[in-house]
């Protein structure tokens, strides 16, 4: 593999073998993965072999080893050139994403109430291995409404306020969802999980705005210095995972008929404009609507905890997905083209003036939410004119250490004590689970964000620091 440094934040993986386009990795030298320990650079090259891919196989500064696609991968295929859609380019956790809510309360006034709010969240946020959800679905018909209506259905049935929908991608509902394309097994897994956090790297954090870099954008987003916020990171839970598993199996068989071969089974794909391609996008949209309802319901649980524990409400800042394939129109080689843009661990970042932005955000761009690690910071970014990689940027800090190694090096109880000593309240479910998510297992989120800004992918709006962590 030949890698050329084009700029301090842009590296080119030269075409070789079956690669149809080069790879472009946005990273600093320090953030580039070590090929001996992490296979993500090879995965960038593998993605470059997909039929119909245009411009480049991209990777963001938080890239790391995934399956099929690297985490942090972005790839667009041209629908009119038999371009493919690959469930591996979306990931198992369809529409995994981040929701940020802001309280009308500053951290100084909030700190005496932190314990009460954390206890209320600890009690009301279902998570970890135990079953349970905020919204119990009694039958598949009710779940079907969730899959079709997304956050719009949640708000219509009393789980939120209308303004929430203005602050969700696609107004909270992804069109063309096909609940009929969801298998009974996926439905069964989803029934008991509407409004549940899950485990692994998913979390709910109480945060405070530590620094504002762009006062005007922050004001439009609804953020100010020292303000208390809530960040929720979760996705479509077992339902989304089952949709991905089911569809990869279908595509593996269909690929033979379409004359497609791929270097990794998890890259299974079919033309977007095919029966199987449409079926996947319909099921993916349904799972995306599930994820948006999931975050909407957890947001409602947080609102109740803040109401009871701190006597204040929470306004939605924004809700983004960082695992998704979207049909979007972009200019490539001087021509407007319909592209299927896969973002696997990457966040869309529309620039100011983009027609898909709601009017109140049009002047400043899309809020782009980047969760960091428990002990460090999270960022709010926004898109920039001339943005790269089909207007995409990073999605988090990005792992560098395996869970196995993290548990070997870090003791969960000591980590909790250390976080609490630094003023961060922790409500976890297991010590080992906590250790697996130790900040030292991740890249430095500030390095990742600085590289993203340096590469021209986005600009900074605000930095948030944790006050309390609820872990799955």
């Amino acid at each position, binding site marked *: 593999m030949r890698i050329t440094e084009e700029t301090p934040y842009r590296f080119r993986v030269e075409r070789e073998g079956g690669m149809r386009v080069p790879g472009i990795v946005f990273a600093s030298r320090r953030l580039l993965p070590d090929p001996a320990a992490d296979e993500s650079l090879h995965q960038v090259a593998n993605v470059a072999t997909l039929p119909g891919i245009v411009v480049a196989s991209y990777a963001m500064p938080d890239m790391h*080893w995934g399956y099929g696609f690297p985490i942090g991968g972005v790839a667009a295929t041209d629908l009119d050139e038999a371009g493919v859609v690959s469930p591996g380019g979306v990931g198992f956790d369809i529409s995994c994403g981040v929701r940020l809510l802001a309280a009308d309360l500053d951290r100084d006034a909030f700190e005496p109430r932190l314990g009460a709010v954390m206890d209320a969240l600890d009690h009301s946020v279902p998570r*970890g*291995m135990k079953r349970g959800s905020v919204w119990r679905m009694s039958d598949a018909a009710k779940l079907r409404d969730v899959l079709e209506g997304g956050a719009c259905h949640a708000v219509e049935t009393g789980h939120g306020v209308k303004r929430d929908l203005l602050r969700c991608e696609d107004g909270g509902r992804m069109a063309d969802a096909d609940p009929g394309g969801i298998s009974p097994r996926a439905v069964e897994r989803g029934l008991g999980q509407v409004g549940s956090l899950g485990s692994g790297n998913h979390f709910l954090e109480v945060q405070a705005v530590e620094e504002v870099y762009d006062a005007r954008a922050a004001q439009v987003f609804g953020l100010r210095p020292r303000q208390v916020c809530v960040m929720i990171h979760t996705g479509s*839970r077992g339902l989304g*995972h089952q949709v991905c*598993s089911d569809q990869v199996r279908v595509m593996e068989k269909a690929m033979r008929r379409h004359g497609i071969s791929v270097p990794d089974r998890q890259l299974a794909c079919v033309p977007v404009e095919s029966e199987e391609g449409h079926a996947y996008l319909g099921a993916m949209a349904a799972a995306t609507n599930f994820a948006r309802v999931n975050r909407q319901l957890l947001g409602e649980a947080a609102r109740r905890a803040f109401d009871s524990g701190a006597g204040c409400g929470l306004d939605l800042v924004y809700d983004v997905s960082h695992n998704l394939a979207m049909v979007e129109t972009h200019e490539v080689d001087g021509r407007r083209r319909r592209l299927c843009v896969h973002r696997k661990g990457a966040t869309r970042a529309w620039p100011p003036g983009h027609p898909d932005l709601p009017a109140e955000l049009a002047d400043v761009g899309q809020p782009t939410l980047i969760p960091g690690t428990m002990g460090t910071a999270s960022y709010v970014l926004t898109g920039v004119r001339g943005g790269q990689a089909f207007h995409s940027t990073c999605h988090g800090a990005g792992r560098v250490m395996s*869970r196995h190694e993290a548990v070997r090096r870090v003791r969960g109880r000591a980590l909790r004590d250390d976080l609490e000593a630094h003023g961060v309240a922790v409500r976890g479910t297991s010590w*080992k689970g906590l250790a697996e998510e130790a900040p030292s297992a991740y890249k430095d989120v500030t390095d990742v964000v600085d590289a993203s800004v340096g590469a021209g992918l986005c600009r900074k709006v605000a930095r948030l620091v944790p006050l309390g962590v609820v872990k799955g």
Partner: protein
Amino acid sequence: MPRTDAGHRATAHTADLRVEAWAPTREECVAHAVAAVVESVVGADPPPATTTVERDLAGETDADLLAAAIDEVVYLLETRGLLPSATEVRATPTGLRARFAMVDADALEPVGAIPKAVSLHRLRCERGPEGWWCTVTVDV
């Protein structure tokens, strides 16, 4: 020389759970892979089983049968709150049949991240000169 030992272990993966297992037979090898996944969630000594669940596993290849076994564990955990404390696997004319001796997962303290799906990335289950060996990456 054919192997007489059998076992399993977790191996390194940046973000998720990767396990490998080895055994004299395919069926024991798959059962050990299941044990490796369960061990990552609740440790090596789960309590005695309270119920059993039997499932037919289908797949075109041995690797797909391995994936089907882990898929079943994920499904039973999420929908019934059960984890296998012991697993027996036998061959059938159409694939495999697994007998899971199950414990109530809600009563257990997890010691690691919860499995959610089986990746096909580098999924392998194959017979070598020494016996059977398999490896699987599980999304957590």
